[in-house]
C-alpha cells in the first residue's frame, strides 16, 4: 500500500503539471482547454522521433519536443482561440476537443498507431521508498518540479505575470501595464503548452505510450485536479494533482487488487471529481464560490 501511495505522488505530480496549464488558460480565458493533454502528446512523439528514430542526443529530443509543444500552443491560439473569441464557450470547447482529436489523428497519420517505449533520461534502478522502487527518472521529475515551482513563483510576481493573472478580470489592467491583450493571450497559451509538453516528456518514459495517451489517461485526472484546486488556484491545481494521483493509486489498490473491480483507477477519479463538484464546488483550496 505504501508503494501505491509513493507511486501516486509521482503520477500525481504529472497530473498537477497538466492541471496548472489548464488553470492558467481558464484564469485568462475562461475556457476549458480540452487540448491540454495533446501538448504533452506532441512533445512526447517529437522527442521520440528525434531520440529513438533519428538517434540524436537526449537533450535535443527534449528541446525539440518542448519547441513542438509551444509551437502547437501558439498555433492553437492564433487559428482557433482568437477567431472564436466572440463565440459561445460551448463552441470554443467543442473546437478545443476538435484540436485534441486532430492532433491525435496527425500523430497517427505521421507515425502509425503503434505503442512506443521512450527510454528514460537516466538508466538505473534507483532507490527504494516505502516499498516502491523510485527510478532516477522520478527523481528528475522532482527536481524539474522544484525548478518550475520557483520559476513560476517568481514570474507571477513580475509585472508581466500580474498582468497575466489580471487579464481575466480586466483586459484594461493589462493595457495599463503596457502589454497588449494579444501578447498576454499568446503568452498564456505558450506557457500552458510548455507545461503540457514537460508533463508529456516526464510521463512518456514511465511506460509504453500510444497516440492519444495523454488525452485518454491524463486529461480527466488533470481536470479533476484543477477542479479540486478550485479551477483558479495554480498551487491548488498542483496539490490537487498529487491528491488525485494518490486517490487513483489507492483506488487501484483497494478496488482493483482487493475487490477486482475493473477500471478502478478511473472510478476513483470520477468519484472524487463528483464529490468535489457536488459538495464543495469552489474546490478544496478555492476562495470564491
Amino acid at each position, binding site marked *: 500500500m505504501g508503494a501505491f501511495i509513493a507511486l501516486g505522488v509521482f503520477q500525481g505530480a504529472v497530473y498537477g503539471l497538466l492541471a496548472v496549464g489548464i488553470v492558467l488558460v481558464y484564469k485568462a480565458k475562461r*475556457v*476549458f482547454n*480540452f487540448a491540454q493533454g495533446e501538448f504533452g502528446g506532441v512533445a512526447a512523439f517529437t522527442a521520440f522521433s528525434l531520440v529513438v528514430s533519428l538517434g540524436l542526443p537526449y537533450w535535443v529530443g527534449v528541446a525539440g519536443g518542448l519547441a513542438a509543444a509551444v509551437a502547437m500552443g501558439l498555433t492553437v491560439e492564433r*487559428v*482557433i482561440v482568437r*477567431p*472564436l473569441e466572440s*463565440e459561445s*464557450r*460551448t*463552441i470554443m*470547447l*467543442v*473546437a478545443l*476537443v*476538435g*484540436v*485534441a*482529436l*486532430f492532433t*491525435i*489523428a*496527425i500523430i*497517427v*497519420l*505521421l507515425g*502509425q*498507431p503503434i505503442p512506443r517505449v521512450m527510454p528514460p533520461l537516466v538508466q538505473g534502478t534507483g532507490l527504494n521508498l516505502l516499498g516502491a522502487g523510485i527510478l532516477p527518472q522520478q527523481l528528475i521529475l522532482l527536481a524539474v518540479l522544484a525548478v518550475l515551482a520557483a520559476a513560476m513563483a517568481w514570474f507571477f510576481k513580475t509585472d508581466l505575470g500580474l498582468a497575466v493573472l489580471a487579464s481575466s478580470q480586466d483586459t484594461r489592467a493589462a493595457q495599463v501595464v503596457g502589454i497588449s491583450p494579444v501578447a498576454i493571450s499568446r503568452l498564456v497559451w505558450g506557457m500552458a503548452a510548455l507545461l503540457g509538453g514537460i508533463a508529456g516528456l516526464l510521463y512518456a518514459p514511465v511506460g509504453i505510450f500510444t*497516440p*492519444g495517451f495523454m488525452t*485518454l489517461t491524463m*486529461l*480527466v485526472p488533470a*481536470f*479533476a485536479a484543477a*477542479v479540486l484546486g478550485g479551477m483558479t488556484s495554480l498551487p491548488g491545481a498542483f496539490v490537487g494533482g498529487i491528491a488525485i494521483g494518490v486517490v487513483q493509486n489507492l483506488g487501484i489498490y483497494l478496488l482493483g487488487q482487493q475487490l477486482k*473491480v*475493473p*477500471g478502478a*483507477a*478511473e*472510478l476513483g*477519479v*470520477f468519484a472524487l*471529481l*463528483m464529490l468535489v*463538484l*457536488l459538495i464543495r*464546488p469552489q474546490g478544496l483550496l478555492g476562495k470564491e464560490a
Partner: protein
Amino acid sequence: MATATMTFARVKVQRRFGLALRVTLVIALLAVAALPLVYGGDVWAQRISRAAIYAIIGLSINTLTGHAGQISLGHQAFVGIGAFAAAFTASRLGAPLGFGLAAGAVAGMATAAVVGMVALRVTGLYLALVTLAFGLTAETTIFNWREFTGGGAGAFAPRPDILSGDRAFALLCLGVLALVLYADWRLVSTKAGRALAAVRNDERIAATLGIDTTGYKLAAFSLSGLAAGLAGGLFAHWNQVVQAMDFEFQVALVWVLMTVVGGLRSRLGVVLASAFFALLPLTLPNFLSGLPWQPPFLNEAVYHVLPPFIVVVMLLLVLRFFPGGLGQLLRPATRWLTKGGRR
C-alpha cells in the same frame, strides 16, 4: 375588376404549380436516396443501416445540445450501454428483438437520467468535464464487466430470421429513424420545444414563465439517452456482436463534432452529416485504394483515424464560415421547399 380577378387566378395557379413542383422534387430526392437500398445489394443495405443508426445518435446529441443547450462528451456510454443491454437481452435471455431494443432504450435512458441528475448540479463547462469523465469511466468499468459484456470476445446479438437479411434490417433502422425524426419535429413544434428554447437561452426567464427548468433539462437528458440507447440496440444487431472497443471516447467526440457540423437544431443537417460520417470509414478505403496514386503512409490503421481528422477539419471550417452548420447552408433550399408551412 377583371384584371384583379385574373391576377388572383394566376397567383393561385402559380401557387398550386409551385406546391406540385415542390412535392415532386421531395419525392424525387427521396427516390434517389432509396436507389442504393433497392439496387445496391447487401453492401449498401448495411451502409444505410449504419447511416440511420448514426443519424439517430446525431439526433440524440441534438436533443441535448441543440434543444436543451447542455453538452455531453460521454455519449459513447449511453450508446454502449444500450448496445450491451440489447445484446444481453437477445443472447442471454433469448428475448425477441423488440424487447432487446426496448431494453437498450430504457438502459440508455436510465443511465442518462442518473448522469443528468448529478450533472445538472454543475453547469456549462463542468458538465462537459463530468460527461467526459463518465464516458471514460463507463468505458473501463461497465464495458469491461465480463458477465454483462462478455469480456474481450464481446456480446453476441443475433438477428431473428425475419430481419436476418440486410435489406430488412435497413428498413427497420430507417423506420426507427423516421420515428425519432417525427418525435423531434413534434417536440420543437409544441410547448416543449418553446420551453427548451427558453431554458437554453435564459433559465430565469423560463422559470418566471412557469417552466420547470430542471425538469426540462432532466427530460432532455433522458430523451437523449433513450435515443442513444435505441441506436445502441440497433448497432448491436447490425454488427451482431458488441465489443467495448466499439465505444472508445474518440467516437463520442466525433459524434458531438458531426452534430455541430450538421448544424444544431437542423434535422436535415444532422441526418446528412451523421450519414456522411457513418459511411466515411466504410467507403474511404475503397475510394483511396482506387486512386491512381497511393500516398505512402496509408494503411488500415490510418483509415481508422481519417474520419476524426476529416470531422475536425470540417468543424473548423464550419465554425469559421457557417456557425449554423450544414443546416445553415441548406436553409434557403429547405425554406423554399416548406414555403407556406410553419417552421
